[in-house]
């Protein structure tokens, strides 16, 4: 059962990854629709970032993580390098937790 569930999860995940790549050729998409594809991908990524920043399971994640993400986002907006953004976000969240912020 353990092996079967891992195999099904792996095959299913790979199928979804591959089918998007293969479908792209089969689909006759208008120019307008084609422009929606990167927009849709960006929207999914924005939703991932927002839910990961704010939520832990079904509940609010606490203050430290959103604060760290906010610092990172601010730096990214100020065109700081990627490394700085990631490190600053982690450091802020870690220090806040060290100070007892949930």
């Amino acid at each position, binding site marked *: 059962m*353990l092996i079967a*569930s891992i195999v099904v999860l792996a095959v299913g995940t790979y199928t979804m990854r591959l089918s998007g790549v293969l479908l792209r050729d089969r689909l006759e998409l208008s120019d307008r629709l084609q422009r929606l*594809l990167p927009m849709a991908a960006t*929207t999914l990524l924005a939703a991932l970032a927002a839910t*990961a920043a704010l939520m832990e399971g079904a509940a609010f994640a606490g203050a430290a993580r959103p604060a760290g993400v906010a610092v990172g*986002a601010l730096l990214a907006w100020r065109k700081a390098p990627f490394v700085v953004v990631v490190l600053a976000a982690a450091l802020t969240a870690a220090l806040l937790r060290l100070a007892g912020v949930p």
Partner: protein
Amino acid sequence: MRTPRRTPDRALLRDAAAIAAAMVAVGASFGAIAIAYGLPTWVPFVMSTVVFAGGAQFLAVGLIAAGNPLAAVFAGLLLNARHLPFGLAVAATVGDRWRDRLIGSHLMTDEVVAFTLRERDPARRRRTYWLIGVTLFTSWNAGTALGVLLGGATGDPAALGLDAAFPAGLIALILPSLRDRATRTVALTGAALAVLVTPVLPAGLPVLCALLGLFALFVPRRRREEPRKLEEVPC
């Protein structure tokens, strides 16, 4: 694009190193958690290699350890359904050859897609996809091995603030795309929608719900009668 044009590849390598370091740490916590749950040693290794999707792996080992492998498969697949629209968006970048498509598809993750969409030039996009894809696959699996070997000694990713690092990194990567007004409207609407429905929907569905944000394009705007300009969207 915010990276200096003179040394684009050095900047990309530096970014790749940063995300790889974070991936090693999170991969290590995955390996350690899987072992702590009492799962056989091969489970985290096999999952990191053949599933290669961090969120789904964490979710799945938790549910498997709780004795609910069916729920693990269902939740994991729901969480990974976003790869289908991702595939549509990056298909041209992955390549036309079958070998590239078969291997490239397996390397597809949120971070790879985010790094790729940041680039405009097709050749550079392609390089980015493969470089980040291979880097993440390697670092995720190395991290998993480290976690299995070191067990609980790898530390809590939350104590290191890594849970804040990944959303911040994603935001940094999608910011250039958000300069386009239509994309920004859709993405922010979708993200808000996803957060709102997270408490009531099972994991995976909220992020898919964000696609409903595309309907924001059809909301009439009084002040802007001209057709929406999409030229900023990297295609």
